[in-house]
């Protein structure tokens, strides 16, 4: 694919293993500025590890992840690349000890040193963007349903207006209707913010709503990448089988 799109995030020959077992085996991937990349793949193929290397949560054994051409330094929470990222975790990962609004406003209060009153106002505004009301902000995460939890976590991811958003299995554990609502919410917010988004999922409905670009990871490598329009006619049968939900390659 040769075009003038600017690479925002690049994984370059990234290797990562755990306890001698390789998970990423020379992963090469690019996410383009202002576009939504969805990485698909089966369980245990290295999707979450891929995101965690870009967040600096895991250090590659070799290779490098770059954001805006700067290498991500693992464990450096003050890196410029990491500080422009919003992340939606699979489980939501809201802090149990804080009310929802304070979860949403966490980065504003503790990293950006915004006054609590203003941070609360901005948190409630962000909750409004994900269709949650101000009363929800005063509840504890344990009082929320799965769908509300995902929305609140989404509000936390977008409140500081990041220009990169990561979504780790955004619809896992949700019923189809709620999953569809979350997918459309993500799609709308990413486009409205003009952010670069990287999502990992094995939910094909999610991929079709969120993606501009699609890449498939298999055994720690990217085996196919293209646009959403191309995914159904991919020249790799493993991609078509995954998208169609087939366990065996097509005959003939």
């Amino acid at each position, binding site marked *: 694919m040769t075009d003038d799109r600017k690479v925002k995030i690049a994984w370059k020959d990234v290797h990562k293993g755990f306890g001698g077992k390789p998970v990423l085996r020379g992963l090469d991937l690019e996410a383009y500025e202002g576009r939504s990349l969805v990485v698909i793949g089966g369980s245990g193929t290295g999707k979450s590890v891929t995101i*965690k290397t870009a*967040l*600096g*949560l895991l250090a590659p054994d070799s290779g490098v992840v770059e954001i805006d051409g700067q290498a991500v330094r693992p*464990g450096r*929470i*003050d890196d410029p690349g*990491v*500080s422009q*990222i*919003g*992340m939606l*975790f*699979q*489980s939501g*990962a*809201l*802090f*149990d*000890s804080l009310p929802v609004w304070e979860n949403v406003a*966490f*980065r504003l209060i*503790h*990293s950006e040193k915004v006054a609590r009153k203003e941070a609360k106002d901005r948190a409630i505004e962000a909750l409004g963007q994900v269709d949650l009301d101000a009363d929800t902000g005063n509840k504890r995460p344990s009082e929320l349903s799965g769908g509300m939890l995902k929305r609140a976590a989404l509000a*936390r991811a977008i409140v500081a207006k990041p220009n990169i958003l990561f979504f780790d299995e955004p619809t896992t554990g949700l019923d189809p209707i709620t999953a569809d609502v979350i997918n459309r919410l993500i799609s709308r917010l990413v486009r409205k913010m003009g952010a670069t988004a990287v999502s990992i999922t094995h939910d094909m409905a999610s991929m079709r709503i969120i993606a501009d670009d699609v890449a498939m990871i298999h055994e720690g490598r990217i085996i196919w990448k293209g646009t959403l329009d191309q995914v159904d006619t991919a020249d790799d049968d493993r991609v078509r089988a995954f998208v169609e939900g087939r366990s065996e390659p097509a005959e003939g």
Partner: protein
Amino acid sequence: MNPLRVIGRGVLALLQSVGAIAIFAGRAVLGVVRPPFFPGQLMGQIMQIGFLSLPVVGLTALFTGAALALNIYTGGARFNAESFVPNIVALGIVRELGPVIAALMLAGRVSSGIAAEIGAMRATEQIDALKTLSTDPMRYLIAPRVLAGVITLPILVLIADIVGIYGGFVVGVNSLGFDPSVYVRNTWDILERWDVISGLIKAAVFGFLLTLMGCYHGYHAQGGAEGVGRAATHAVVSAAVLIFAANFLLTSLFV
């Protein structure tokens, strides 16, 4: 397998653990002294570790002081030294039993609680979430807990000392026939300032160790609910062993 290799592996694993704990402790101390600070977190932990531990520490100290008085009276009677009950209860509580028993109770209550809480945060990706929100977990989670342990343990031990001596006093006066004013005067006369201060220094060290163990094992918990349970167990056991070891070392220094 070659027995030397087995021993070598064990020694290496032990040294690796000691090194990892030392590095973790160093990072925790850095988090205490270098900004950003999280005073809200610190106050919450002082409440959790200190104030909410008062009943268990107080009750333990009360019964320990009472039992100590009975034992010393029985033992002392064998060589006509019953009158030393107030002196030995006071010294025993202030120099040894107050700090050690309070710390052991807190190892059970606080170390396991911290390990379970932080372990659950690890399992549910909340620690990763902190990092993505540009907040250092060492400063936000670990440093306030360790500092709260160092601050609150001496206060708890001071209270335990008073309550423990009172337990001995109640038994001494009501069961052993001591005159109340003589009991109080003997207690007051035997105690020196250093007795109290050395006990409080021990308490601060124990507070550091027991919160550090809770944090360390919770922070490195792996494997979901089972891993969290394992972390809590390891936290209590390692905190208790370190408390006894540190108590011996400090007592050697202080006598």
